[in-house]
């Protein structure tokens, strides 16, 4: 139960963080000028967006949950299981970012989930 909760944190907090950062970046718009001064201005603007801080906080939680998980389970179990973030990311993108996900991407996500289930079954 404890292990399942930590795995849940790795996937949900990690993916939630990425979604929040994506939302912040979408608000700022695409980067087309890669000169250092422009990039610094961009980082400064990014740090003034609330979603960026929520995203960073969630990603920090996700990172420490990953460390906790790696202290309990083998890396060849933990890393493949984190591929579930593709499913969480697709769901979050639809619900949170209002993106349209193609049928082919859902098929890919389903295949990833099947692979994760097989890895889960390989647990001794």
């Amino acid at each position, binding site marked *: 139960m404890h292990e399942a909760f930590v795995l849940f944190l790795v996937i949900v907090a990690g993916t939630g963080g990425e979604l929040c950062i994506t939302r912040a970046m979408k608000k700022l718009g695409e980067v087309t*000028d890669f000169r250092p001064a422009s990039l610094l201005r*961009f980082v400064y603007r990014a740090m003034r967006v609330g979603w960026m801080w929520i995203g960073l906080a969630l990603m920090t939680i996700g990172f420490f949950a990953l*460390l906790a998980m790696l202290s309990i389970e083998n890396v060849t179990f933990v890393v493949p299981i984190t591929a579930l973030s593709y499913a969480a990311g697709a769901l979050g993108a639809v619900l949170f970012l209002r993106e349209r996900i193609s049928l082919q991407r859902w098929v890919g996500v389903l295949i990833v989930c099947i692979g994760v289930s097989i890895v889960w079954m390989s647990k001794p």
Partner: protein
Amino acid sequence: MKDSPALHIKTYLLLLVMVLFAPLGNVLLSKGMKGVGAATDWRPADLSHVLMRISGSGFIWLGIASLLTFFVAYMLVLTWADYSYVQPASAFSYAVVAILSYIILDESVSPLRWAGIAVICIGVLVVGRTPHRTTLERTGA
């Protein structure tokens, strides 16, 4: 950016860095955490003790450095290559993590786990072959 042999070499080199350093980072974090011990107690006093041990582990810092190297390579390659071209490369990371964990951590991987990893790689490749912009474009910097 103009397509040239030098650009191809640069792209493949950075993809190689990505595919090697992300799994290496995770394997080093795993080695570090195995040394720190299982984080099963969540009381504040125990957590702070674990955090102290994490911050004192050389393998954890090497792991973070590897993941940062991956991240920089990823960001750099995305400045000229398509996301749809770069993203499927991450599929190979799942296989590389199994190989590196066998070499560095002496972990054995069962045939069933290899099968699961292979299926995940196929799934990630399928995800990577889908369109990468479904919303309107905005220009910021």
